């Protein structure tokens, strides 16, 4: 962490801990490059890697976003053009999950993306600026000290990437194999095998996946929100609790209180105008 001083790339490289982090990130990027090269070809490997190199050397944030977009695009069209793109098939939708190449690719790319963001936290900025405080002088960006890195971080990085990849594959499998059937009490059913007709009332496959995904997202977000909200209520400090109750009371009685205050203000102004004693109209309620 430094203050009011933006270190140059050479100063950063001299720090052994940061050097190690840079090597780890570069290694992750190299693995992602290899996977992309192996399974999608040189164009798909080269373009994202150029952005990755840019992000690593110049500590820039935006190339990581472009990297994600370009990888997604080149996974779809490996040479960047729709020439080799065939026609879409239901077979691909149903049997496209848990492909070894995809699993390796996604794990490698995810590992690199996370490693790159962590590296940016070490070398560029780990905490945002506080926009609403004019007291604190605008110091330089706060970086995470490289000495805080633990050995287990790399292991967790790889392990988490594999877990995230497995999660993605699992969710995709569910999305591709569950379909709405509005004739059922629980309007969901497992999709019949390829070649067998579906009997029932449903929606199109793409819309089906979208609605399923949206519903799952809403359920997950709602549940998480509910759990953390209730837990937060249990963990309120005394002042937060007083403020919450006061704010709720203010919501309840805001109109009445506003009217009361406006009339009180008018009475006070009138009393001031007439030079009358207004002690009862002064001060805190």
């Amino acid at each position, binding site marked *: 962490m430094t203050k009011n001083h933006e270190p140059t790339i050479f100063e950063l490289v001299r720090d052994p801990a940061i050097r190690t982090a840079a090597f780890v990130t570069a290694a992750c990027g190299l693995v992602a490059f290899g996977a992309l090269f192996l399974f999608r070809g040189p164009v798909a490997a080269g373009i994202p890697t150029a952005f990755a190199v840019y992000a690593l050397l110049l500590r820039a944030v935006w190339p990581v976003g472009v990297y994600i977009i370009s990888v997604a695009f080149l*996974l779809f069209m490996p040479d960047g053009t729709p020439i080799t793109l065939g026609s879409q098939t239901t077979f691909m939708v149903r049997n496209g999950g848990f492909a070894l190449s995809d699993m390796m690719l996604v794990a490698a790319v995810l590992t690199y993306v996370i490693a790159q*963001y962590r590296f940016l936290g070490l070398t560029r900025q780990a905490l945002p600026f506080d926009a609403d405080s004019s007291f604190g002088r605008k110091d330089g960006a*706060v970086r995470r000290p490289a000495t*805080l890195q633990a050995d287990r971080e790399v292991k967790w990085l790889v392990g988490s990437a594999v877990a995230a990849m497995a999660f993605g594959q699992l969710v995709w499998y569910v999305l*591709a194999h569950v379909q709405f059937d509005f004739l059922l009490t629980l309007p969901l059913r497992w999709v019949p095998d390829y070649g067998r007709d579906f009997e029932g009332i449903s929606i199109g496959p793409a819309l089906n996946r979208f609605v399923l995904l949206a519903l799952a997202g809403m359920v997950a977000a709602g549940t998480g929100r509910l759990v953390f909200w209730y*837990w937060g209520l249990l963990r309120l400090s005394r002042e937060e609790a007083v*403020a919450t109750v006061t704010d709720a009371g203010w919501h309840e009685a805001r109109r009445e209180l506003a009217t009361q*205050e406006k009339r009180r203000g008018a009475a006070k102004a009138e009393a001031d105008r007439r030079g009358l004693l207004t002690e009862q109209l002064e001060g805190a309620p």
Partner: protein
Amino acid sequence: MLTARGWWVLILAGVVTLLGVVVVAGWTASVAAFGLGLLGWFSFEWALFAFRRRATVNKLELTRTLIQGRRVVPVAWANRPCRVRVSIRNASRVWLPFVVFDDRLPPRMAVQSGSPRAAVSLAPGASCEIEYELDPKRPGLLRFEGVSVRLSDLCGWFYHRRFLREPAEFLVLPPLQSVEGKRRGAKRANTLPPPGIHRIRRAGSGDELLDLRDYVAGDPPKMIAWKASARRDRLITKEFENDVPVRCAVFLDASQGVRVPVAGYKPVEQLAGIGAALSQAAVKNRDLVGLTVFDDTATQMTPAKRTSTHVIRLLRSYAEAAALLPDRPQTDLDVLTATALPLANDIYPDLMTRDVNSRPWRLYWRPLLDTKWGWLFFLLWLGPICCFLPPVLNLVMQFVLSFGIVGIGVLFLSFWVITISVQIFWLIWWGHGLRGFLPGNRRKVRRRKQLGLVYATLDGSGPLAVERAIHDDGFFRDRTNRFLTEHRVPLPVHLLDPHGTFRFPGDAKAGVLSDAILRSVGRARDNELFVILADLMHLGSTRSKVIRAVRLATARHHRVLVVVPWPEGVPDPPAAGAPLPRIARDDEPAAIVSLVERAVLAAYHKAFADLRAELSRAGATLIKVNPDDAVRLVLEKLDRLRGVRARR
């Protein structure tokens, strides 16, 4: 909670997922798997961060110690560096991978060495220490509000800020003047009495001969001057001078005028420093020292003693006086709000979030019928329509039935008039209500609501206080002034009122000071030294009260010294006939600067000369003290004055 970086990642992951699941799924499942994997990781990090935040933030324990001279101290001494050590312990069972602590410094303090910031990874039960050095130059008060806590994940996607509020106040006592004190104890000349003993030209039991007088029956025989009696052929008695310890009564001005910071320091700090040095020097001379702190309304008196405990008590009084802030309310609501809001955001971030401190849209709506003219408008415009609508319609319908086509035209016209009237009313209703959404009004209401809830929470005064803060300018101004004073935030103070008159002339303090002097004179025994540390330069007609009190004191054989603080940058008064000096500034037009500064300087020098002349006529001495004058110089001047008088 999401940072800009986090929002971008979330948006990108969402877009890639949607494209993969909906658009390109028929060609490849790789995009969907990639997007879902990224989204899954992001969600997991989010949940983990939320868990850590809630599990740990209220479980951080803060301990603060002040170290000076290798010891933990409850108070600090000015002009000596002190170390602040803050220990923060993670009392939860959750590991914090990255947390940044920032100790909030007292106002006007700068770190000499070390850093008030620590960026650490905090394991359960582990502690983090922040240590840095401050160097309080003047007596006063150090107020530490607490420590800002900023949590983040390793990728910089999520962020949370809290404030560990542990207010701690440490008095900064004036420095111990050991060198000056010892030096005061040395005799300057053989004509001076020994330390602690001062001659007084009244009959007493001292060693020095005061006078000879005729023998009075009852005089002790040993006092008879035999040689003089033989020469005059009658009995003559010797009288000796009185040897008594001098009692030094210090009067310290703590009025509003000297609490206002000028050029980075408050005159009361300077006066308190001088008073402390003077008191210590007097005690070293074995004199008794008392202190009277006065302001515009009241006095606080400490009786004269000379014990070391008493000295410490005096130093505390000096420090407390130096710590006072001007409580003359700031009247500019914009300045108040602009100062208080960042402070509240810094210190009470938990009370400023939308979850706790809501800002609903309807907060900004301005109801038409909350105003008198709104009701007037309603009654005059819509009231008649509502009242006369049925009979008018009845008449119209009769007209329609009687006159056919013409009647139908009149019917349409009537409805048109009524509809337009209602529409105009709604237009005015909406226009008046939406005025509250204009940026200026919206900002004002939002800020007042936020601050009002913080005040109501701190005071426990309920929802009415929130609404009162929004609507009542006077209440909001007073409460915000108090809020800022409690947190010792210096506010810009206007020295002049809109008419160009000095806002702190101190006429009230003149009466208080003269009363205090008269009380001290009434209680005084032998010759006493009255030292008045006060800014008397701006007193108007009320100065005569002080002069009268001083004259009475000198008439009772007391000595009076008046010490006034001399503003920084103002040159010394010139010798008689010499041209006025100029303040060297080159950032404004020379002619105007010259004209204004000459007028101001002339007025100030004249006030000083008048005061000096009046005090001289009253038998007192005036000393001016520049901000950079060492206390030693002031003591030299005082000692010289005392010595001269003592030898007389």
